[in-house]
């Protein structure tokens, strides 16, 4: 394996060097010719295949379409996943087999228990809160005059990157002593109300909730959009019939709207939950994982790359992986169900 890896890194190094480091004129010209030849070869192959469809057996067509994807998945996903699992049973630099020691550390060390607790808080709170707000909002603005504007407003944060959003919210939470001019919006409000300014990102465990608020702010737009579309897809005759039977307001929402959009709700919940499990940018940007706000993805990066504890980092990655699997499975099954209904 090592030999193969070395060979490939040498081969790719040579090819990459040839393709990217053209400094002399003959080299550049050769490179141009090589690229043109490659282009002609690929295009010719495609045109040839298209022109003579009968000659190509079915398996070859299938392989041609699916093969590259499978190869890419094998190389880019399956191989690293297996490698990570192997690394997670090894010590800091992969020289010694340590069994499940890394997992024991991850579950028993108080430092990592805080990380796991935070991740649980994130995964429970973000999907529920953002889906709830998104759903209520979608119902409230549905078919009102200012629907478009209202939806655009709530959808806007989706367009902001996680890092951008985190920087914005860092300013919102920015702390200055009460007697000084405030920079942070939230503390300015507190001071205006005559209260003391607060260190929102510093004091555990509440600081985790203030970070979660950022994710909710971003994800609510997503939940609202999908759910709003689902609500609009409820057949009019059902709504009509319910109305004739005397349903309205909250009862209409409870007995007609929610059951009708259940598949969409589940997909939204699980999608946000998966995104939340992987949250890294917000924590890293806002607190760097300090003040007991770290989550698994952030801790995995810190352990693997900053502290160079690769075994432990890999173990954390595997834990994350295992946690995501049930969500993915459930999500896919629900999507299939939703498709069948349609």
């Amino acid at each position, binding site marked *: 394996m090592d030999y193969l890896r070395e060979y490939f890194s040498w081969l790719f190094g040579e090819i990459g060097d040839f393709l990217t480091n053209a400094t002399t004129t003959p080299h550049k010209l050769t490179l141009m010719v090589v690229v043109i030849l490659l282009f002609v070869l690929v295009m010719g192959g495609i045109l040839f295949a298209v022109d003579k469809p009968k000659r190509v057996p079915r398996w070859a067509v299938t392989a041609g379409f699916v093969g590259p994807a499978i190869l890419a998945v094998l190389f880019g996903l399956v191989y690293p996943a297996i490698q990570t699992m192997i690394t997670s049973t090894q010590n800091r630099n992969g020289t010694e087999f340590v069994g499940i020691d890394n997992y024991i550390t991850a579950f028993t060390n108080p430092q990592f228990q805080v990380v796991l607790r935070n991740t649980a808080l994130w995964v429970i709170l973000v999907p529920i809160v953002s889906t709830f707000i998104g759903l209520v909002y979608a119902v409230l603005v549905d078919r009102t005059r200012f629907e478009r504007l209202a939806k655009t407003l709530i959808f806007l944060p989706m367009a902001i990157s996680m890092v951008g959003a985190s920087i914005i919210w860092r300013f919102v939470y920015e702390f200055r002593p009460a007697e000084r001019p405030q920079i942070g919006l939230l503390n300015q409000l507190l001071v205006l109300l005559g209260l003391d300014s607060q260190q929102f990102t510093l004091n555990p465990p509440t600081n985790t909730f203030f970070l979660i608020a950022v994710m909710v702010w971003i994800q609510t737009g997503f939940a609202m959009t999908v759910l709003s579309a689902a609500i609009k897809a409820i057949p009019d005759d059902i709504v009509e019939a319910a109305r004739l039977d005397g349903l309205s307001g909250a009862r209409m929402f409870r007995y007609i709207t929610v059951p009708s959009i259940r598949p969409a709700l589940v997909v939204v919940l699980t999608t946000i939950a998966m995104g939340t499990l992987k949250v890294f940018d917000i924590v890293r940007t806002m607190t760097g*994982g300090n003040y007991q706000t770290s989550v698994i993805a952030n801790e995995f990066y810190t352990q693997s790359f*900053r502290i160079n*504890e690769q075994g432990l980092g890999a173990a954390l990655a595997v834990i994350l992986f295992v946690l995501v699997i049930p969500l993915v499975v459930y999500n896919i099954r629900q999507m299939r169900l939703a498709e069948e209904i349609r």
Partner: protein
Amino acid sequence: MRINSRRRSAAVAGGLGLVLALTACMPGDDEGTEGGGGGEAAGSEECEPFEQYGDLGGTTVSVYTSIVEPESVDQEESYDLFEQCTGATIQYEGSREFEAQLLVRIQAGNAPDIAYIPQPGLLQTIVRDNPDAMVPAPDETEANVDEFFAPSWKEYGTVDGEFYAAPLGANMKSFVWYSPQMFADAGYEIPETWDDMIALSDQIVADGGKPWCAGIESGDATGWPATDFVEDVVLRSAGEDVYDQWVSHEIPFNDPQIVEALDEVAGILKNPDYVNAGFGDVTTIATTPWTDGGFPILEGECWMHRAANFYQNQWPEGTEVAEDGDVFAFYLPSMTEGTQPVLGGGEFVAAFDDRPEVQAFQTYLSSDHWANEKAKMTEAGGWVSANSGLDVENLATDFDKLSSTILASPDAVIRFDASDLMPGAVGAGTFWTEMVNFFALDKSSQEVADAIEASWPAS
């Protein structure tokens, strides 16, 4: 911790983005003068010292470092003469993710020719984990180091008896920044001993002020400025022998002497009467960016700020750093008579290839010639070296001269930044995070020391 432009710049990344964009647009001016054949561009007299390296025309040496803009500009300028006279091209690349990326590159078989490693601990890790990656320093480099550097500096570049990396720049961390004007107006003297400094702090409190300001926030490296404070105190209260045992884990991290030093730090930085001038209560130390930590001095709200010599570059533009200027620094006093402990740091030049041009460049960087060249190129100050061949007169500012003088003083007992020597899990991990907890969660000295000891790697 150490000088690290990445961290400094990370905190001001927003503003720096513009600077980066601007400087990225104008790389042309030094390209024009270099890249010719061997020795044709510069005067023959200037090139004489380079004859030993031979003609290196057409060769390239890649350098990977954590030194980014703006410091990298002076750094690159200091190679110009070497490039002109030998014909070699130095391909400089600075990265804010240096520590993580260097390991990735080594493991991928894509190591740079030369890397400037700021932590001897990381140097050891690389050598031990990747036995074939790093190349021992050539004999000429070793000869330079023997001639120009103190033995302890050579020791930091040595792993298991083999000498790998020569020191490059140095920093001097045992400084307390203050405003000469404020001290003069209030009639305060610069403290000569630790007790004087505490007495002065109490005096300031009695006069209605808050003596100290501090900030340890630094992105994902938050906490490192506090580790420096602790190290400085350990060096003073327990002495250099205990310090060495502490670093090499011959005594545990929660040894009573270390806990005592933490208590001493707490006596200053966790004393609500002393801190955090200009920012708020004690917990604000954890959230105040280290780059801003000393700014209240300029507003007359804070009297003292302990920070390294490279804090000089953090003062806002227009701040005069001089003994009669806006700010200056005094040596953090020792606790016992007749000793002068100094906490230092620096980068080390490690090579991953032994081509002649790489070795030549390595040797050049370890020479007094380069040290003086670099000093001349650093017009605005903010750079010193432990190279004894460095002519102090070439340094740009009085402050750099002071730093250099202290580093070179025969009385100085210099010890390298402990967190840079400890294993990564501690030195770049729990030591930082527990110092954050020390302030943010008000953990006790004993709790902090116990937690760090518990995280010390078994092997």
